[in-house]
């Protein structure tokens, strides 16, 4: 499988580090990180990643707003977005499904299976 480029948008640097290491170890994917929604949109426009892992609760513009902006942007709207969130309520899950994200992975996630979870959602093979 060709190496994938994954964009992580999360304001928490420790999460970025764990995800980065996990995906590198398990799938050897390339990782770029953004610490805010606006930075993430900018990176997405320029690097056209294969998938975006997007945190929901972030300052300035949150994950939902970021997703909507990415979705409206012709350069980024084709990029699959997987929400990486601590919000686990049923109502929240329904909201995420409604806005059309590709998938939702709940924090805390298992770093050993994170890559396979992403691959399964995106129908990639590892």
């Amino acid at each position: 499988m060709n190496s994938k480029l994954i964009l992580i948008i999360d304001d928490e640097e420790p999460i970025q580090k764990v995800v980065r290491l996990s995906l590198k170890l398990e799938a050897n994917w390339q990782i770029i990180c953004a610490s805010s929604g606006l930075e993430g949109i900018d990176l997405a426009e320029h690097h056209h990643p294969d998938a975006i892992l997007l945190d929901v609760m972030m300052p300035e513009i949150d994950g939902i707003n970021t997703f909507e902006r990415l979705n409206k942007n012709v350069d980024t709207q084709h990029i699959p977005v997987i929400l990486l969130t601590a919000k686990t309520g049923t109502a929240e899950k329904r909201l995420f499904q409604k806005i059309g994200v590709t998938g939702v992975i709940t924090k805390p996630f298992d770093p050993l299976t994170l890559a396979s979870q992403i691959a399964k959602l995106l129908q990639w093979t590892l």
Partner: protein
Amino acid sequence: MECDDGVGEHFLWEEVIDPHPITASSQTSLSRALAKLTAQPVKDCIVVMRSNRVVGIVTQQNLLTAISQRHNWTKLRLAKVISQPATTILQADLSTPAAVLEIFEQQPISKLPVLDEQNNLVGVISHQRLLQATSHPEPVVSIQRQHQRAQLFAEITLKIRQSLQLKDILQTTVEEVQNLLNADRVLIYQVLPDGTGKATSEAVKDAYPAVLGMAFPEEVFPKDYQQLYAKGRILEIKDVHAPDAGIAECLLEFIEQWDIQSKLIVPIVYPLTPEQSQTEPSDGHELWGLLIAHQCESPRQWTDFELELMQQLAAQISIALSQGQMLEYLEERVKLRTAELTETNRALQQEIQERKQIEMALRQSEEQMRLITNNLPVLIAYVDAQQRYGFNNQAYNYWLGQDPVTLHGKSIQSVTIPEYYEKIQPHIEAALQGEQVTYESEIIFKDERSHSVSVSYIPHVELGSRGKAKINGFFALTTDISDRKAIERMKDEFIAVVSHELRTPLTSLHGSLKLIATGRLGHLSDEGQQMLAVADESTDRLVRLVNNVLDLQRIESGDVTMDHGVCNAADLVEQAAEAMQTMAKQHRIEIQTQLQSLSIWADPDYIVQTLTNLIGNAIKFSAPNKKITLSLQPLKTAPTDQSPEQSSPAALFCVQDHGQGIPTDKLGSIFERFHQVDSSDSRKKGGTGLGLTICRKIIEQHGGTIWAESQLGKGSKFYFTIPLSAN
């Protein structure tokens, strides 16, 4: 008026006609009549009138008989005791005494009223006086003497009547009789109830022994003698020593002790009291005593006048006794009535006092209520059946700027903006139908800010005479819940923050530990590996705990809205079983299913969450190589906490394991938060103590029931029901 019919040369009608008879209405009471009669001692009858016409005669004897025989004599009127028919004669018809005597002989009368041409009463003819005047024509001198005697008798009677004290009356009587008759001794002998007797009054010349106060044994005056005197016997003995005197030898000795030569005895009849008349079998006369005159110096021939005087004075004593009795009776009645009035007065005073106390207590209570209602931070109002305010507390003024006095009597609609009235109208109508209503709303206070309020309407129900409930209105209580709402919002925000802020470092911690544990970042010593495993397991448990706490909080706060829909229960069980397969394999547990297709009305995500929780528990508490069975079957009537009428068909889910089982005494509490069967075991299994509580909350929100059955050492069965869909 004069006539001569041969019986007398100078017969005068005036001598036999009493021109001023006592008259009284037929409705006059006996006591009043008696008073009239005794006020004029020379009179012995009353002419009874009705509408100025003579209707009959009542004699002194009639009155005494009535008083002594009729226990209710105090209530009697003269009309009831008239003894003589109203036979009258016109003055113009008075021809000769013989003609009038013939009338007396033909009629059972002793008195004959005389009327003028206009039927006015002009006098009464006495039969006795007519007889005396015609049979023994006396010279004028004799008549004058008789008149003087009558005057004398009247004077004595008047003296007697000057006192109401019986003792004085009796003493005056004996003194006057002794004086008039010039008797040596006059005494009154009273017969006592035990048959003995006593001289109670006496007037005696100094030369002779006194008997006053002496008691006499019954033998002196035996019972059969008493009865004879009671019937009116008069004993007149000229000479006690004469052979025809009829006095026994033994008595003669007794008599000689008192120097008695001659004696005259008349009975004093004792009228029975009203009570005695009811109980004693008597003709109404009882012998009270004797009026006795003694002549000690020599034998004496008692004259008719003396006899008559004694009789009349004895009658006067009887009247005095009657009056005394009447007085005593009236005094007793007055005493009783006074006692009754005193008691009534006391009771009234007490009632007045109690009422005053009640009124004071009511005023204090009202004052306290007013104080309380006016200072409570709640809008309190009473609304009548026509939706008019009957009461508003001061909070209406403080909060809304509406004066309670101004609001009184006004309809809610007239003081409420139309849009708001439209919102609350259904609640008002429901309350007036007898339903207790509680709702939340937003209202603008006088500070022009919107406040969240909770409003309760409590119907004022009154039971009618036939037990039918009538709604008079309702009480309205409005509480400002703005602060509570703000706190709830803060709590929600806090939970959201905690959710994120806890999970984020947990995610990093959890991920880092997992990656280290792979050994791909470098190898650790055995001890290092062990510590890493401890950190990893603890992190896992912390993650589950945080998840469960947040889940439970959301469900309990009502923040979670169940998205009910029709779903296939068997699919949900399969889905949960599949999700738990990985864990089952790790524990070498086999999951079996016994399913059938059932449509239920539920939120599928929450049912799967419940099932995975129960399956997870079953796996954790089963030994390796055991089976877990998931079954599903329909129930015609689901067990419910509500009434049987409200139970409905349901799907019965069952998760059965063959683990260690649960003690019976723990089965009731395992669904309570942090109530684990064995906390140390639970920690070992990584439980949080909240899983079953969450399951119960979810099932309750679906209108179902959850429970467990277990046998120690053999395993447990966890059941829950979910209503079948109508389709």
